[in-house]
Structure formats: structure tokens, C-alpha cells
């Protein structure tokens, strides 16, 4: 859906993005992570055509976003990490305004306003002035503004900052729901524990370069890579050899009678792996998929290593 080709962005005295190339799949939720100053916000602003790159292209469904930004914007939603609101207008007026400037058919405004407000649990605040909302409500309201026109591609920079745990949980559910409805989401956040609740892919950026882009195992978004754990009742010489022989298995790490590996494929692949192990006469005591910790993957990526 989004293709970035050799994107270079420069500030007067330094280069912020060094030939970044990446692809974002339709229907995915990608967590954009990286240390402070890595170039996350710059990359995001280039993706949504709010900043012009020095060179390179960003394609949205094949269209260069920097050549026709206005045409592309109606299909995009964006929430900046530092945002403002029209504080003297009511929540309803603001949402109506965004629907209008995004070219939504006026006959749909009311329904979309209600839906966005419902999704963000601010339906009871529609007639309050935006300036009177608490910080958490403002954050939710800002997200509602970003999704009011039902964009195909939603980009959020630190969307959960200022939200209480319950609101974060609701937000996580909302993202999964939007994703199920076909929306593609890119989220930049420092709170990795929150990202792993809903992200299907991880994009790691450091010093203006993409260090890693991978599907996150165990995510609910249809990722096709799993982190598997197999434990035997006793040590066995053929353990590693058998594991490696199974198609789709990679990154095997064996620690005594416990092995961890990455398995590409769907549920059938898991079944095949288990059957192969048993047919090889291995005394399998435990076999399950481990939920991958985004934090571990991120740290391993930054440190140049990898997790199975």
C-alpha cells in the first residue's frame, strides 16, 4: 500500500533520513520504533506529505504523495505527537469541520461524527467546547479527528500519551477493529508494551536508517511467522537436526532439552512441525507458540542481534 523508495531528508546541517526504503502492507498495523532523534517523526511527516524529501519517493497505492498531496490526503489520517485543537469550537463542530475539509459527503457527516465519537468514547462530549476537555479526552478527540473521514491509511505519532490504562486498552481494541475493517495503521510510540498489544509489524529506525522491518510473531493481525518453544522430557542428539529439517524453521536455539525457533507458515506448519518431531521419536513434553515480546525484539535489533 505504501512504498518508500530511497527517501533522503535533509535539515540544513544534517541528513535525517539516509535513503530509507520500506513497504507497508495493506491491513497491517506497523509499530515504528527507534531511539529519540532516530528520524521517526521526520519519516512520518514525509509519508503523509507534510515535509518534502530531498530525494526519493513515497508512493500511496502507486501515486507519488509529494506530487499530488491534496489527492492523497483525503485517504490519510494523521495525528501529530504535539497537536492543537480549535478550543473555542465544540467537539461536534470540529469533527464536522474535518469531515468537510476532507471532502466527505455532507449527508454522511452526522453518522460519521457519531461513529468516531462512539469509537473514542466521547459521544457524551460532542457539544462541549474542545478547550474544556481534559488532557486524556483531548487526546481521544484528536484521534477521532484523524479517523472521522475513514482514511485508508492512518498515521499516529504517540497516540496513547496522556491516556489512562483503560483508555489505552480501548485504543488498542479500536486499532484492531479499524485494522479488521481494512484500515492500514502506522503507529510511532515509545511505549513498546502498548504497541505489542495490536501491532502486526515492527519497523525499527536508527540514525535515519531502517534497521529492521519484520512481522511480529503471535500477533493477531495475520502475521505468518511464529516463535515456537519445544521442550523434551530428556536430552536427545537428533533434536536440532530434526528441527532444522522441517520446512519454514529458522533461528534454532537449543538450551539443553528446550529449543526455541522461528516458524514461517500458518497453523498447518505448526502441525507439521509437531508431527515431524514425534515421528522422529523425540520425547516431546511441551510444544507451544510463545508470545513475542516487542521489547526483546527491539533491543535485539538495536544491538545487532536477533531473536529466534
Amino acid at each position: 500500500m505504501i512504498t518508500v523508495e530511497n527517501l533522503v531528508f535533509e535539515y540544513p546541517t544534517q541528513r535525517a533520513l539516509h535513503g530509507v526504503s520500506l513497504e507497508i502492507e495493506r491491513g497491517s498495523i506497523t509499530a515504528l520504533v527507534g531511539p529519540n532523534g532516530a528520524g521517526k517523526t521526520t519519516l512520518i511527516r514525509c509519508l503523509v506529505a507534510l515535509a518534502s524529501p530531498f530525494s526519493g519517493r513515497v508512493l500511496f497505492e502507486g501515486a507519488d504523495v509529494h506530487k499530488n498531496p491534496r489527492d492523497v490526503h483525503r485517504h490519510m489520517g494523521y495525528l501529530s505527537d504535539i497537536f492543537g485543537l480549535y478550543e473555542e469550537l465544540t467537539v461536534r463542530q470540529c469533527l464536522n469541520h474535518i469531515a468537510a475539509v476532507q471532502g466527505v459527503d455532507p449527508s454522511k457527516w452526522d453518522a460519521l461524527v457519531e461513529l468516531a465519537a462512539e469509537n473514542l468514547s466521547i459521544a457524551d462530549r460532542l457539544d462541549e467546547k474542545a478547550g474544556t476537555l481534559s488532557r486524556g479526552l483531548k487526546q481521544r478527540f484528536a484521534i477521532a479527528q484523524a479517523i472521522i473521514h475513514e482514511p485508508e491509511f492512518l498515521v499516529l505519532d504517540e497516540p496513547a500519551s496522556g491516556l489512562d490504562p483503560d483508555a489505552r486498552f480501548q485504543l488498542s481494541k479500536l486499532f484492531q477493529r479499524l485494522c479488521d475493517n481494512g484500515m492500514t495503521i502506522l503507529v510511532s510510540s515509545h511505549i513498546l508494551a502498548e504497541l505489542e498489544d495490536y501491532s502486526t509489524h515492527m519497523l525499527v529506525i536508527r540514525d535515519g536508517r531502517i534497521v529492521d522491518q519484520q512481522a511480529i510473531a503471535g500477533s493477531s493481525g495475520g502475521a505468518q511467522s511464529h516463535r515456537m518453544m519445544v521442550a523434551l522430557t530428556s536430552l536427545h542428539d537428533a533434536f536440532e537436526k530434526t528441527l532444522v529439517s522441517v520446512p519454514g524453521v529458522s533461528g534454532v536455539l537449543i538450551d539443553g532439552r528446550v529449543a526455541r525457533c522461528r516458524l514461517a507458515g500458518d497453523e498447518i506448519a505448526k502441525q507439521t512441525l509437531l508431527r515431524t518431531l514425534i515421528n522422529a521419536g523425540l520425547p516431546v513434553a511441551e510444544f507451544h507458540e510463545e508470545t513475542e515480546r516487542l521489547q526483546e525484539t527491539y533491543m535485539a535489533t538495536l544491538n545487532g542481534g536477533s531473536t529466534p
Partner: protein
Amino acid sequence: MNPELRRNLWLEFSNHRLIAMPVVLGAIFLLAYLLKGELGHGTGKIASLCYIVIIFLWGTRMAAESVLQEVHNRTWDLQRMSAISAWQMAWGKLFGATSYAWYGALMCLGIYVISYGGILPFDHLLIAVTLFVVSGVFAHAVCLLVSLQTNQRRRTLGRAQVMSYQFFGLICALPPLYSGLSGYGDYGIFQSLTWYGEQFPLPIFTLFALTAFMLWSLVGVFALMRVELQQKNQPWLWLGFVGFTMIYFAGVYVTPPKYAAFLIPFLGSASMAYIVAVIATYIMVFSESKDQVHFRRLSHFMTTRQWDQVFSSIPRSILTLPIVIATGITVAIYSEITVAEGLIRATSIRVVVIASILFVIRDVAFVYFMSLGQDDNQGDGRALLYLVLLYTAVPALLWAMHLKPLAALFWPQYGTAPLLTLLPIIIEVVVICYLLRRRVQAQAGRLTSQEAA
């Protein structure tokens, strides 16, 4: 309805404000009526004064702040991410942000028309009211234009800054408004104005000229709004404006009667056009963005032969230089063939004109040299200060020290040998262009070494 206009109307027209304006203005007009005891000059003048205060003092501030406030309040990115067109955004802001001022201004115009209805002929009244409206829109558009232009260099909001934008709006719109209205003199006796040798009634001419410049200011707002919304502009609009302004002011020039026997009118008009082109170059070189990235990108477009990108990215001041050179050379040629022998030394004029072209090139290069020095956005200010010193204090000092020949370094000299006039400035142009090139190369090199590291 334009969504941006509607948003502004929501913000500007609360119930309280809807009532407040007519109450306050009503009280003022009632007082004026009671003092004079009739609707006439007294109430008419008060109405026009109120109009000027509301539109030119208050409305200009609203126009200047319309985008800056959004940038300051961090809502501008939300607008920039919308699908609204640049034109809708431009006129929605221009008339939306100032809508409350227009609300009051229209009441003032109503009282003005009622007051002068029985005094001025209908056509005069119509021209006067149109002049008021057009000059108001023009002033607002100029304020928004200047604020957008500055916003693209430095995204800040300050009271002094806004006042400076208002100042531009006022000096653009108030003099023609005054000139047009003063053409009525004793009601009905038009003053006239000569344009390209033809006589025109002053109010009508002012109205047409003001309307033309107002339309250009709207075009300018539209073009700058496109840039804000990440759309690229080709430079035709700017070149068109420069051409129009040159033609307009060339027509205003009238040959003084005592020189009429010696000078053909074309020389005066061409000189006027040349001066306009020079002024346009200076205005643009100080107002447009000069960040280093823009230059590096331009260089990248040139090396990759993306000529349409080169054309749209090239600084407008540099693009205006060929017009300056062409017009200047035309003036130089005509000064030789039209000036009568003995009255003015034609060769001197020609040399002075050519020297002045070189001074413009030097100054443009100098401003860029200073602006690309430090990344603090203060390069323009430093360049302006040095140029003012170079054109005023230093030559004055040389005069005082009886070193007049050295003044050729700082001013185009009239009446001296051509070589003495031209050689110093040619050397200056070569030196400053060389330094500018080195600075650009050094910055590109610094980035490359960072990249390698």
C-alpha cells in the same frame, strides 16, 4: 459553503459579538447624528472613519494572524493534511478571518451611503463605496500574503511581527484609497491622471488600478497557500506580476515639459520599468526563503537534469535578474540614441545604468552569501545592515575624507571615466560570486563528510 469560511464564522460570530457590533456602531452614529442634527457630511465622515479603523487597523491584524495563529496553536498541520484546495483555503481564510470586521464595515458603508445619498451623484457614491471595499480586500490580502511569505521562512508569532505585516497592508491600500477619494474635490470635479499619455479621471483610474493590484494580491495569496499545502508553483505568476507592475508604472511616468524636446517618452517609461524590476528583485531577495537545503535540492535537480523542478525551485529573485538586465540594457541603449547632444552626457548615463545592473547582481549574491552562512535565519538582517552601510555611511565617509574616486566601489558613479565606474563593481561581482560558490560547496562538502563518518 467553503468549510474554512464556515469554521471562521463559527469562531467569529457568537451571539454576544453579533449584538455588540451594531450596538457600539449604532451608539457612535447616533451621537454623530445628534451633534449635527442631520444625516450628511458629519455622519458620513464618521462612518468612513469607523470603516477605516475597523477594516484597516483591526481587519488587517485579523488577516495577518489568520494563518500564524493556526501555526502557533498547532492546528495548521491538521489543515495542511486536509483535502481542501489551496484556493478554497485562501479565500476561506481571507474573508473568514476578517468576517467580523466586514460585519461592522458593511454597517459603516450603509451609513456612509445614507449620509451622502442626497449629496453625491450616484456614480460617485458607487465609485467611493467600491474603492472602500476594494482597498479593504487589498489591504487584507497584502497582510495575509506577507504573513504567509514570512511564515515559510520563520514559523513564529509575535505582536511586532503582526504589526509589521499590517504596516505593509496599510501602505499598499491607504494611499490609493485617499488618492481615489480625494479626486472628488468639490464633489464632481474630478482630478485627472495621465497614463501612457491619456487622461483618466483619478477616482476611476485608481479604482481600476487598485482592483488590478487586489487581484494580483489574491493570486499571490493563492500561490503561497499552494506552497503551504505542499504544492509546487511554476514562477509564471511572479514573472507575470513583475511584468504587469513594470507596464503599469512605466505608463505613470510623464516626461517633464522642459525635457520634452530632448527625451522620447519611451526612455522615461523604460527607466521606470527598470526601477520597478530592480525593486521587485530586492523585495524578493529579502523575503523569500533561502535555506541551504533548498539550494542543495536545486543543485540536485540540476545535476539530475530535472528541469521542470529546477524552474519551479529557482529563487524568484534570481529569476528576476534577467528582466533587470534586459530592461537595464534597453535603457542604456535608448539613453544614447535619444538624449540630445550637450544636455546630458549619454555615455555617462549608459555606464551608470550598466553599473547599477552590476550592483544589483552583487547585492543579490551578497544577500545569499550572508544567508547561507549561519543557520540562524538572521542572514537577511545582517546583509541588509551591511548594504545600508555600504550605500550610505561608507560613501559619506569617503566624501568627507576627499576620497571621492573610491566611491565607485559603493555607488554607480556619474560623470567619471567608464573604466573607473565599471571596473570596481565588476571586481566586486566576481569576488562575491566566487565566495558564494565556495560557501555552497563547503556546505555540501560538510554534509558529505558527515555522511561518510
